[in-house]
């Protein structure tokens, strides 16, 4: 026959063991509520040029040397499965216009002798600097100075 005190001790042990290392787990700082997952790049008419999918992109922009390429940048809070390569649903797209001013985007081209980018958090203009060349561009979304999201580098060419 098990006594009530033994049952109580056993219950306490089971509770403590249920989540091993619970008290040792570091407490994470509060995370921003906005969880950006993907980026969609369109031209000025809304035609989709590229969209990110986890670690890679589908579609790669071509920047005309003569005219440059005006783009708009959208973000998606949804992420498709690894084996589902469709574009993020348009209903999940958001623009930075809808967010407070503390959200900003850094756009960095790795080789600025190939092209340059000027714009704001809604989009901008790629200007080709060298015809028949290629580089990669990174989009980093920050809230204040904290990085929220970084897309994989996007390859593009200048023609």
């Amino acid at each position, binding site marked *: *026959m*098990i006594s009530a005190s033994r*049952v109580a001790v*056993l*219950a306490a042990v*089971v*509770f403590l*063991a*249920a*989540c091993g290392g619970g008290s040792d787990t570091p407490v994470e700082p509060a995370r921003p509520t906005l969880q950006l997952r993907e980026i969609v790049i369109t031209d000025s008419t809304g035609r989709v040029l590229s969209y990110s999918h*986890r*670690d*890679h*992109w*589908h579609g*790669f922009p071509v920047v005309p040397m003569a005219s440059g390429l005006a783009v708009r940048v959208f973000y998606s809070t949804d992420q498709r*499965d*690894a*084996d589902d*390569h469709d574009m993020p649903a348009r209903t999940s797209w958001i623009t930075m216009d809808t967010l407070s001013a503390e959200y900003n985007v850094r756009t960095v081209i*790795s*080789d600025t002798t*190939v092209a340059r980018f000027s714009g704001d958090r809604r989009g901008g203009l790629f200007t080709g600097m060298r015809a028949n*060349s*290629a*580089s*990669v561009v990174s989009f980093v979304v920050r809230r204040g100075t904290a990085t929220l999201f970084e897309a994989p*580098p996007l*390859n593009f*060419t200048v023609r």
Partner: protein
Amino acid sequence: MRNGLQLFMLGVLACAAAACEHPIAVITPHIEASELLVRDTSGRLLAQTVDNQRWTGGSIEVPAGDSLPLMIRLLDFQGREFSLESRGSDYSVRMDIEQAASAVWEPLTRFGWLRGFAPATTRMRIQIWHTDHPDFITPWLPLTVRSR
């Protein structure tokens, strides 16, 4: 009395399980592969690892401004070829390309495009990713992006 005690203990165990923050997840096994094969979409073998220490079959070539469809296959430890798709949806193919601006890998279902952007003589290696970590990493394979 004994039944009551058993019910109480079941209740304790249920509470303990519910108290745990870690969700119960189905964990797929790591990919167990001995070699990796690179085929074109007709099935022709372009390159294969040997003991996953070196490559046989030469280098991969793609013209700048063009794309090469590739299928990545694996050999198990009995030498049987298999596809990642046959092992579920938790695996993906990634490529490291040393000169990142010269080419890129665009994976699709069952195959992917190796897209050439700028002429370069560089190297690539293939990684089989299992959710958030690589299960298999090949040695570097020469990659040539040719002028058109």
